[in-house]
């Protein structure tokens, strides 16, 4: 099937979907997995970037381009709930990284202002069925407020076209008590005496509270007619997060840090999303009680402690789900000693979900945790996360569960447009697979 691309230069934020795709598509004959209800064989109709009809025998608009998907499956496109896509091209080359700004408190910075739409990593990622992602800045060594995350579709000529929600959440790297830290200068772990580490953490936590106090004050002052207060970008950005108006992602790993972060969020009535959270299983009841969702670190991580159960990271998603904590899988909320960090691991998010199914999570819940649940967590479930009429048409056609390695992705539709499966990897593969065979003679490299 020929893929048609429309260069769309129209205003991007109408309906918060990325583009005005003047295209009507119908995916016909596939087993549809709406996620919100049971699978059925039928059709998905897409027009103007939006799913317009879903059903066993909904009518096909006359001008529709038909994708014959008999024998295949249609799933919602998958959601990487925490990534650095577009902010980093090659981890080791700082020139290609716009991920970590200097300074400790940067609530006014937005990922959208640095996302590189033509990053080679994006097509590689979506070829595995990821259609949208949270792109989050991170703080440096001593940073606390990293900036604002952006929700993007993994297709678009410009960031404006890609952005579903330009500022979807604030990101805080919780200033916890860190008694052991990797020192890149000496390549070794350096221990800080507990009292010193505690003092440093408390100082930063107090500063963080001062920033939120100031944001409250600023909002109050700004509301006054003829206010004398000067415009302050940072406080203005922060004030939008007070009282749960905008979600605040807090990255915290240990039980102690998570508990402190929860108390902080409660004080400022924040709409908190916990990320990373290696120890979330130890505080699952607290998280359930406070209704705090968790963006999980990689399931394929090592246990934190020597004496933790070997399968603790594999079992954590199911334990949280059973306790009533909303979960979402992600590539970059934390890694645990395996695949290199960075955007290049985004394409394997579905496998992080599948890994949990061997350890208690149901297949359905694993799928929800890469589709519907992250959409709910970020307050965009009206736009994304399931195959339902009215939602942005981010869907994929596959020959099996998208969480299984062996499954192949056949079609990707992002914001209603069919997107090419081709990418850097596929091109290199084709190119070198076509290299003529050398007849084995002479020393290696004697020719060429």
């Amino acid at each position, binding site marked *: 099937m020929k893929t048609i691309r429309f260069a769309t230069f129209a205003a991007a934020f109408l309906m918060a979907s990325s583009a005005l795709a003047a295209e009507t598509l119908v995916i016909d004959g596939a087993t549809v997995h709406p996620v919100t209800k049971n699978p059925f064989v039928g059709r998905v109709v897409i027009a103007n970037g939006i799913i317009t009809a879903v059903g066993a025998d909904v009518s096909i608009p006359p001008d529709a381009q038909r994708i014959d998907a008999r024998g295949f499956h249609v799933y919602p496109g998958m959601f990487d709930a925490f990534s650095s896509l577009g902010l980093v*091209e*090659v*981890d*080791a*080359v700082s020139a290609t990284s716009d991920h970590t700004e200097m300074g400790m408190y940067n609530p006014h910075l937005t990922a959208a202002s640095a996302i590189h739409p033509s990053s*080679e*990593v994006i097509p590689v990622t979506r070829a595995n069925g990821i259609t949208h992602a949270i792109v989050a800045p991170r703080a440096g060594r001593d940073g606390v407020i990293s900036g604002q995350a952006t929700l993007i579709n993994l297709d678009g000529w410009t960031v404006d076209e890609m952005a579903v929600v330009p500022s979807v959440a604030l990101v805080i790297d919780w200033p916890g*008590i860190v*008694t*052991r830290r*990797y020192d890149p200068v*000496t*390549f*070794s*772990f350096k221990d800080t*005496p*507990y*009292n010193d580490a505690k003092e440093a953490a408390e100082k930063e936590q107090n500063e963080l509270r001062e920033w939120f106090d100031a944001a409250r004050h600023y909002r109050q002052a700004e509301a006054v007619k003829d206010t004398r207060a000067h415009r302050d970008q940072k406080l203005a950005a922060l004030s939008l997060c007070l009282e749960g108006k905008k979600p605040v992602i807090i990255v915290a790993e*240990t*039980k*102690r840090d998570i508990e402190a972060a929860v108390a902080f969020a409660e004080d400022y009535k924040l709409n908190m999303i916990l990320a990373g959270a290696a120890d979330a299983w*130890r505080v699952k009841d607290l998280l359930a009680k406070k209704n705090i969702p968790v963006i999980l670190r990689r399931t*394929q991580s*090592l246990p*934190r*402690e*020597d*004496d933790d*159960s*070997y399968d603790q990271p594999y079992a954590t998603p199911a334990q949280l789900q059973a306790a009533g904590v909303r979960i979402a899988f992600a590539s970059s909320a934390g890694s*645990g*000693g*395996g*695949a*290199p960090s*960075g*955007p*290049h691991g985004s394409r394997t998010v579905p496998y992080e979900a*599948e890994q949990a*199914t*061997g*350890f208690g999570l149901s297949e359905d819940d694993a799928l929800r945790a890469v589709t519907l649940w992250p959409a709910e967590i970020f307050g965009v479930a009206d736009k994304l996360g399931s195959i339902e009429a009215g939602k942005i048409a981010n869907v994929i056609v596959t020959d099996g569960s998208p*969480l299984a*390695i*062996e*499954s*192949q992705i056949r079609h990707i539709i992002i914001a209603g447009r069919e997107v090419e499966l081709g990418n*850097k*990897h596929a091109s*290199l*593969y084709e190119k*070198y*697979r076509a*290299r003529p*065979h*050398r007849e*084995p003679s002479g*020393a*290696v*490299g004697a020719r060429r």
Partner: protein
Amino acid sequence: MQPSYRSLFRLVVPLLLLSSLLWAAVLFAEPPTPPPYYAIQNVRVVSGAGAPVEGATVLIADGLIEAVGKNIKIPGDARVIDGQGLSLYPGLIDAMTTLAQKQAAESSASGERSRAPAVMGPEDRPATTPWVNPTEQLVEDAKIEKWRKAGFAAAVTAPEKGIFSGQAALIDLVDKPDRQAVVSTTVAQRVNFTGEGELRSFPGSLMGVFAYIKQVFLDADNYSRVKATYTKDPRGRVRPEYDRTLEPIETAVLDKTPWLLPANLGREIDRVVTMQRELGVPVILYGGQGAYDRAEALRTAKIPVLVNLNWPKEEKNRDPDAETPLRTLAHRRMAPTTPAVLAAEKVPFAFYSGGLATTAEVFESVRAAVDNGLSNEAALAALTSNPASILGVANRLGTIEKGKIANLVLASDWPWAEGAEVRATFVNGRMYQERKSDEPTEAPKSDVSGTWTLSMQTTRGARELKADITMAKDGKVTGKVTGERGEYTVEDGRMSGDQLRFKTTRETTTSSWTLNVDGEKLAGTMSSGSTTMDITGTRTSKADASTAAGDKNKKKDDVPLTELRAALAQYQGPAKKMGTFAITNAQIWTMAGPTIEKGTVIVSNGKIRAVGSDIKIPSGAEVIDAKGGAVIPGIIDCHSHIAVEGGVNEGTLAVTSMVRIGDVINPDDVAIYRALAGGVTSANLLHGSANPIGGQNQVIKLRWGADAERLKFVDAPPGIKFALGENPKRSNFNASANGVPARYPATRMGVMDVIREAFTAARDYQRSWADYKKGARNGIKPTLPRRDLEMEALVEILEGQRLVHSHCYRADEIVQLLELADEFGFKVQTLQHVLEGYKIADEIAEHGAGASTFSDWWGYKVEAFEAIPHNAALMTERGVIVSINSDSGEEMRHLNQEAAKAVKWGGMTEMDALKLVTINPAKQLRIDKRVGSIEVGKDADLVLYNGNPLAISSVVLKTWIDGDLYFDQETDHVRQGAVIAMKERMAGKGKEKKADDKVGSGSSLSAPSPEVRWADSPYSCSEGDE
């Protein structure tokens, strides 16, 4: 008798030795010199050389024991000391200290360190000063008097800095150690397993230190032979160079001087035993706290032990939420049992104070050993006769026998016993009497026992301290003061009237406390040097006698050792030793033919006996019903860095072919168990990628619970790591900004040059031996070449005896290496990572190299930017034997899934994909005769999955190695429960916490001893780019 002459002599000697500035001090401090004749009568002699003798007399004359026994006539010129009610013991010996040594000027800043020239190889003799002997410059040391007051009369003093730090001397504990104080100048040569570390200067890793030590001994041997040959027949021979370092080492070897080697934990002790076997020199092990389960090995190897009395404890100012691993808790509990175990197993051992600040702590530690089963007699031996015989001075010291040096201690009880009073210590026949404080004492008006919170007024505000104090009826006070900076022992404590006085020591500073107690409050001062600070305090809890006794009982209630050992065995060891067994009803992926549905595998004596669909089960065989699950050969990881201690890189030099991963295997790394739970049974432990030619690798089987030697895959041919590209040229690491000297190479040109240069040198080295064997040429007789461990490994490569495993990324550098190998006539066995291998698969296939790659890692650096997940499939299509490796303790846990990615990307069959992690890596490591497939006669290394072994959702149920069950998912939770339960019981005394509630800062396995401590090295797994 000429006392005046002797006095004069004593004055003249220091005069000659000391600068005039010190003259006055020496003059005024000179004590009287009484006649050197003493008689101790009516005393109980506990000699260590037989049963105690009651009512004995001991005569001392001219520094020696003149007579011991009953009915001895007391000479008229002897000062008579009545020993009624007292015991006389041999003077105690502290078997290793740094007493009376001049403190080397600390290079205050690392800046100074970085200005020193970097060590560029073993030939530069890093941190090697075997000629240093403390007796050349003994200095006054305030600690000597404290030690002597407690009954110590002699001590070994050894320089502590450096790898070959210097000679250990035995000295008498006199205030101003002079020539007379030296009992023996060289009782041993001390070695530490420490170096500069990191990347700055060789050696930068534990394995580098091991290689260095071996090279030095080889060099000393060569030096000795060449010198001897030359001395005998110098004509026509090139004169050997003088080597300051090798002279004393040669001397020590010829004199059979023992070598002090450090080890605490079991695995460290194993390394010392191995090293002793390799070096063939007498060894004394120091540290030794983990010898509780290595006594037999030590006895067999005839290695005596100096046991460090500084028992492992919880660190101060520790993160209260940090979790302590069971192994560490167990080590703390079991370390004080070591002396009793060694005594029972008849391993000679002595005690040393190991940096403890006070003798009160030293004796508390001795009592801990006694509480853990050591007899007081054996404790005495460990402080007297044992050190004397271990150090070769038993003919002079260690017992109370006629003619021996009069080092004695007169005490009311065993000197370490609670409440014991040392009345006098004789050192070299001179009496040092313990005098009561000249402060007037009166009976205590109140009992100050209890816990006090103290507030100290400092210039920076009030500081809070805690004092735990116990007062005896006579007013003697013991206890501890705890502050932010640590814990201090109360010394010389006494409650007199309502005044409490005691001292504490921090490093070399002594503080005096004078506090007036008024009921539950106290107030007073603490003086330290010229500063005095006000103290106020209140008692927060009263410890009465009954709770003190309760504490003691509680101590005895410690977890029984048998239970603790059982829990450890459950934690670390095979889940089940197996006899003959059959796995039935399994889908068997043999890797040697089509998959067998509903098949059976029979295993006995560790080998596969039968495989098939219609197999008769031998009678008596245990039957394991696989219930339709899949059995595959144990997974083999062709690239791993788990279970390596002290750094995976010796990254200081461009060529480090002399270092061996096999020297530093850490069998206690929990990564082994976690990998078993991922179905891995063998792993290729590689050196890191910091240099073009790295160290020697070690293939292991993951026999969790076995020691390092028994982890080794004995039949695996030896190999070595090479590395090309960004890592060896240090592209992604700013060396100069981190104070690391620049190191050639910095380009791919240079990397190739380093390798070519190394092999050119190796050929020359080969020739130098051939020339030597040919004999004289033109009248010049050849010199015996030096054995060079770096060159030997390279020669083995040239001879096809050592397999090259080369880290590489870019296609062009791979071709360069293959061409270079052709040029020197060797084969590259495996290309590791080889992320652009797909571009030149034909060239790789033609050379015959294997390729071991990642499944889908990419983009983390420039040379990984053209990595594609189709790499494995594409190379396989073109005839390369390919494996998928982990390079990570995490990735290692799901290599089956990584293999499955080759089905998705590149369309391999499931069978071929699974070969990527089984038979193919076995071929690459040349262990395929033993492992890698399920065939009759092969090792029974097997994995049982509950479903398709390539599916993520499948779980490893069981993993067998050599037919024993090493991982069993069914019982893992029992194991886990036992670990948690034991930890709760052990932690129960201090913090009442559920293990479930504990979080921590990633404290690692039982920390290695300070003498063996290493930072993690660069380019380790954390970079993900090995």
